[in-house]
């Protein structure tokens, strides 16, 4: 039971959280990116035909842009698209909604883990204003769905230890759904369940029937995924982004081409396998770098400049204090907190490229909880000081918080739309709407997928934007003869291919 006071605070936080997640949702991020339009059109196609854009009946993984996306988010989009139509708001609505709903959910999860209302409330306040959580809530990607399902599942898992049988059922369903929601839980969830059972075996061994119900239901639900992963195309995305494909590793560290040219004198030590292992360690530890945590982790600005980290700068002292408290003092479930962070970073560190805020999202709850613990410790320290020092400490911290929130607001609303517009395919909508307005005046309309200042490195899929903004009939698109190969693609009056611009640069 929650008290009236806690209830009112939570209501206020939901309001604040809702505002930061919903206001201007269709305008910021500045444009729909390729995954968002593809998700939106797949949902539209399911709504109209029960098939995805490629004509597959209610698929368990969506071919989408060739990366075979997990299905839960796209199915969640279907009612949203049905209610709001196919537009920016409907594509982002489920993420924003689940993001807002996470606020009370996380309170109960934090309470379950920390066994303290104070820690839970402070951490929930931090969650409601977390730039990391707000940003992920405002994009029509599958990250937020995955996080939400995982958290509901873990909360139910905790309740299963002491509660009724239906918590076991809920835990198995939501944790299994997390596997169908986004890539990271596919590794995180099974390992987390194993560790959870190991850590709480003393509690669980007396509830074997509930544990059996949980395990069997979980396995039954994920069997199709296992089958598809082993024998189907579900592993495509994992293969595409696996650490062995990392450009820095291949080009600068292992020199993969050179491995075949007489570098086998020490054999196993030169063949790159061990180098890869130590490279993985490097990638794992890089997620604990302050640059990622506090400076530029959210990639809202161009690389090499300043920006926003996955945590605010004002969280540096609380985060350190929270860590110290966890390491030094007894704290409920503290082993689980560290295991959670380790497992949460595992999938992210096994992928290519630099640290990624989306792939490491599963650590967000624990990182925020540690900050929350630190905030409480910080104020406990201040309380033990003389009043003048207490006043100075509180004033300084308050100014830092206000400054940091304003700074984050400016990054979000001014710098991000300018500096990352190209990555979100800014301008494509305008071009597509123009083309649709003038479609009848031409026999053939050619789109060059190479675009922007950074082109040709930015992948562009104008066909998806045409489908999305024209609400192109899915039945027609599924049945239409699409002439094309890798470099040319045609449907209706549209041709997507490179254009020889006669040496003129775009």
């Amino acid at each position: 039971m929650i008290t009236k006071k806690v209830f009112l605070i939570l209501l206020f936080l939901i309001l604040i959280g809702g505002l930061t997640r919903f206001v201007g949702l269709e305008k910021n991020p500045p444009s729909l990116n390729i995954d968002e339009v593809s998700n939106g059109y797949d949902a539209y196609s399911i709504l109209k035909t029960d098939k995805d854009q490629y004509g597959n009946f209610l698929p368990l993984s969506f071919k989408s842009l060739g990366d075979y996306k997990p299905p839960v988010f796209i199915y969640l989009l279907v009612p949203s698209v049905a209610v709001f139509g196919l537009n920016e708001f409907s594509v982002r609505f489920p993420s924003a909604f689940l993001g807002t709903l996470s606020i009370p959910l996380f309170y109960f999860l934090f309470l379950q883990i920390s066994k303290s209302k104070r820690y839970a409330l402070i951490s929930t306040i931090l969650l409601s204003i977390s730039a990391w959580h707000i940003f992920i809530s405002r994009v029509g990607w599958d990250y937020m769905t995955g996080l939400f399902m995982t958290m509901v599942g873990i909360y139910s898992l905790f309740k299963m230890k002491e509660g009724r049988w239906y918590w076991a059922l809920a835990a198995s369903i939501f944790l299994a759904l997390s596997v169908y929601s986004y890539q990271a839980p596919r590794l995180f969830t099974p390992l987390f369940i194993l560790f959870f059972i190991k850590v709480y075996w003393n509690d669980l061994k007396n509830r074997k029937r509930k544990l059996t119900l949980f395990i069997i239901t979980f396995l039954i639900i994920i069997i199709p995924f296992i089958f598809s992963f082993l024998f189907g195309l579900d592993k495509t995305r994992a293969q595409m982004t696996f650490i062995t494909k990392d450009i820095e590793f291949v080009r600068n560290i292992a020199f993969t081409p050179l491995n075949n040219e007489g570098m086998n004198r020490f054999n196993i030590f030169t063949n790159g396998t061990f180098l890869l292992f130590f490279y993985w360690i490097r990638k794992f530890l890089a997620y604990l770098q302050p640059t990622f945590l506090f400076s530029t982790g959210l990639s809202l600005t161009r690389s090499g400049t300043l920006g926003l980290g996955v945590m605010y700068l004002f969280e540096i002292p609380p985060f350190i204090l929270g860590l110290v408290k966890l390491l030094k003092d007894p704290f409920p479930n503290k082993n689980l907190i560290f295991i959670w962070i380790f497992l949460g970073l595992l999938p992210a560190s096994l992928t290519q490229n630099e640290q990624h805020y989306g792939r490491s999202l599963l650590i967000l709850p624990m990182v925020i909880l540690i900050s929350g613990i630190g905030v409480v410790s910080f104020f406990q320290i201040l309380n033990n000081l003389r009043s003048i020092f207490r006043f100075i400490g509180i004033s300084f911290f308050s100014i830092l918080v206000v400054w940091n929130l304003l700074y984050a607001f400016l990054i979000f609303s001014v710098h991000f739309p300018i500096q990352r517009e190209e990555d979100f395919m800014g301008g494509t909508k305008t071009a597509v709407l123009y083309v649709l307005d003038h479609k009848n005046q031409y026999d053939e309309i050619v789109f060059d997928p190479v675009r922007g200042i950074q082109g040709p490195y930015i992948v562009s899929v104008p066909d998806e934007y045409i489908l999305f903004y024209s609400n192109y009939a899915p039945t027609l698109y599924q049945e239409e003869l699409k002439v094309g190969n890798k470099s040319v693609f045609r449907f209706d009056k549209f041709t997507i291919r490179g254009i020889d611009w006669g040496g003129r640069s775009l």
Partner: protein
Amino acid sequence: MTRIRISNLNKVELWLLLVVITSLLFRAYVLKYLYPFPSEEILTIYKFNLWGFVVFGLLNPLLILVIGRRIFSLKVGIIAAFLYSISPWTTYLDVAGSIASLFLLGLLVGFTGILKFKRSLLFRVMLIFLGFMILLSSSDILKFTIFKNVGIINTVNQFRGEMNDSSYALLGKIVENRYVYILQYFSINFLRHFTPATYFTPENKIMGFSFSPPILFGFLFPFIIGLKSWFSLWKKYGLILFLIFLLFIPSLVSENSLSMSRLVIFSPVIFYTIGFGVDKILTTPHKYMVLLKNIFLVLIILQALVVLSDIAFREPVRIDMLRFPMLNR
């Protein structure tokens, strides 16, 4: 004249011999693969030559051992000196005749003079003077070059420009200004000096090209355990611990902060910390400690072999590819 025989050496002298031989061998190994690249291709700061590896490789670990033995214990001193001798971080800089290694030598010589050894006052004063002279000759590493970083200036200008064109220009003037940016940049870089990735993974390439880790990853575990020892020594060595923080400053104020070259003057502190940790692990018979010790020992041996093969086969290719375009000062 008395002939020196191995059998006549005492325990300390034997360890000294081992450390020095290891140090020189590893540096010679690195030099073997890097020396073929003509030094004129490198900016004048680094010259792959013999004096650097002999002088630094011989004297620095020796002094680390002597200081460690005097302040902490023989075991901690030996481990720290051994770590210096096998660390790719110090080895690359020694072999390159880095000015930072010279500065470290000055610090170690001067500090040895300050310590209360049972030597004559004249000897100690001479050491302090020598240390001071070495520091003076290598004081370039203390230069405040952070404002030469074009990246920060460009960032500030770009952000200010974007803000002025927006409807939040006034708010931007208060919340975003050059002082705020520089403070933020400073704070983050300061914190980077305290993260494990900096010391135990090649997050920042040594000398701008090497993918060898500054210190082998397996030593992270004893390092963490060793950190606890520092806290218990706080009362005894509080002043020293405070002064240690000053050793970060040259790296912090460098143009490309953080600078692994400048940070090498802090390396003995890391080595002593690991020394504490190794000592603790070896004397704690707890089963988890033994298990962890074995795991990390395997990791250390494995990574040492990987690093040795990498130096032989890949590092020369990296140098050849990059031709030292960016030295990590």
